[in-house]
């Protein structure tokens, strides 16, 4: 365990020196801050009726950028270490593969989650200053949603990095996964729906298997419990799942996906040649 934390600590130190981290912190810190701040101000003014266009745009941006950032930087660092023989040297010390893998995972998690989380807290403090009542339940739920999205893509990124030896292929695969989850699934489902050959329930279920979609619905439901902005699909979701279960799903499901991929990645890491 002591080595696990050592690996995480050094990984965090390393991230804190890299440029991508500052771009990341700047983009998401700013974005999330604004996102939440506008959420609070809206709530004060309108008492949670309706989600402003602004909120939707910000959330869309998060959904687009957060996953690709996590995928690219993680795959780059892990398979980059392998390709440049850093892994060979670091693993020539008496460290178990378990400590190394999960130590890296923990370190990465901290670096991708905390900038966003801190920005959120800044948003809350700002809301306090403006004199609004802080919806603590919402703050906690929103943090959980982001945590869950981070974990799910970290898991996928670690899986890709151990599955693929080459750096370039790893990056290509990350990009493919991102595009698939972001757009292709939706496009394909819209096509299916228009053909009317499968029931809407099936289409919605498939859509909800996408962790990005789970996050999206969860985040919208936070600000707009009636899900009015997403139209008729909302009735189906709320009828079949209910608001509470929907939120639970949006938080837990992406974590499960991430954990599953992370464990597969770990199994591969142990089973395959390290270099």
């Amino acid at each position, binding site marked *: 365990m002591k080595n696990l934390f050592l690996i995480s600590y*050094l990984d965090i130190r*390393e991230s804190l*020196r890299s440029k991508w981290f500052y771009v990341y912190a700047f983009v998401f810190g700013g974005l999330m801050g604004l996102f939440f701040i506008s959420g609070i101000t809206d709530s004060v003014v309108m008492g949670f009726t309706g989600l402003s266009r602004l909120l939707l745009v910000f959330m869309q941006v998060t959904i687009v950028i957060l996953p690709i950032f996590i995928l690219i930087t993680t795959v780059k660092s892990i398979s980059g270490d392998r390709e440049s023989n850093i892994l060979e*040297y*670091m693993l*020539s*010390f008496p460290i*178990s593969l378990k400590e190394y893998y999960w130590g890296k995972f923990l370190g990465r998690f901290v670096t991708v989650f905390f900038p966003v989380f801190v920005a959120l807290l800044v948003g809350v403090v700002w809301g306090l200053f403006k004199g609004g009542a802080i919806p603590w339940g919402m703050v906690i739920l929103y943090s959980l949603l982001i945590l869950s999205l981070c974990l799910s893509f970290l898991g996928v990124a670690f899986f890709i990095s151990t599955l693929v030896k080459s750096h370039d292929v790893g990056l290509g695969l990350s990009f493919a996964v991102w595009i698939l989850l972001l757009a292709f699934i939706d496009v394909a489902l819209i096509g299916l729906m228009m053909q009317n050959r499968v029931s809407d329930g099936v289409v919605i279920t498939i859509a909800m298997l996408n962790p990005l979609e789970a996050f999206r619905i969860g985040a919208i439901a936070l600000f707009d419990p009636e899900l009015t902005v997403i139209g008729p699909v909302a009735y189906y979701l709320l009828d079949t799942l209910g608001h509470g279960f929907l939120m639970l799903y949006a938080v837990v499901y992406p974590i499960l996906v991430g954990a599953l991929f992370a464990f597969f990645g770990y199994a591969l890491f142990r089973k395959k040649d*390290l*270099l």
Partner: protein
Amino acid sequence: MKASTVIVDVENVRKRFQGATVLDNVNLQISLGDRVAMMGPNGAGKTTLVRCILGFYHIDGGRIRVTGYDPVKERVEVLKSVGFIPQLPPPVKLTVGELLRFVERSSGTSAAAIRKKAEEMELDVVKHSQKPFFKLSGGMKQKLLIAIALARRSRLLVFDEPTASLDPRAREHFYEMLQSIDYEHAAIYITHRAEELAGLVNREIYMDLGKVVDDERI
């Protein structure tokens, strides 16, 4: 010689990469006190063999034991007694200070001992401790890796061409330091310049096409 002094035991080891056989039934025993120069043309499989011994590769056949342990299944036990210098200095992004901390915490080697070894090669670790390791010059990197490996006082030293980027003076220091190791150990030096190791090694192993083709004690 007692049987218990065998440090590295390689039995019928085979390793393939994408169908190409890189290690072809390699047999090798290295005992405490053996200082081996491992030679052979580029692509002979020297680095691959060493990586199998250190547990980086899963072998396709045969058996390897290092100090009695399986390098893949019991890697921590094996690596506790190994000091390793890779063929190319890795572009580690940690600072020198962080790297020393990593070595100290993971292997119990004191940073002070590493600093002392580095001084013997005229490398001032303290001065560079805030610098990322990869920004050191090629020779400085190699000196630090050597200092770390020697400070660990490992029973098995595995050096894959450790002098490639050292200037003649540093190379001299390095050989002096190897000469003055004051405890019982075994060493594998992979090299293309056997004459430099004269007087230091007592065994020469020659590999070609994935096989040990010659093994002489001198």
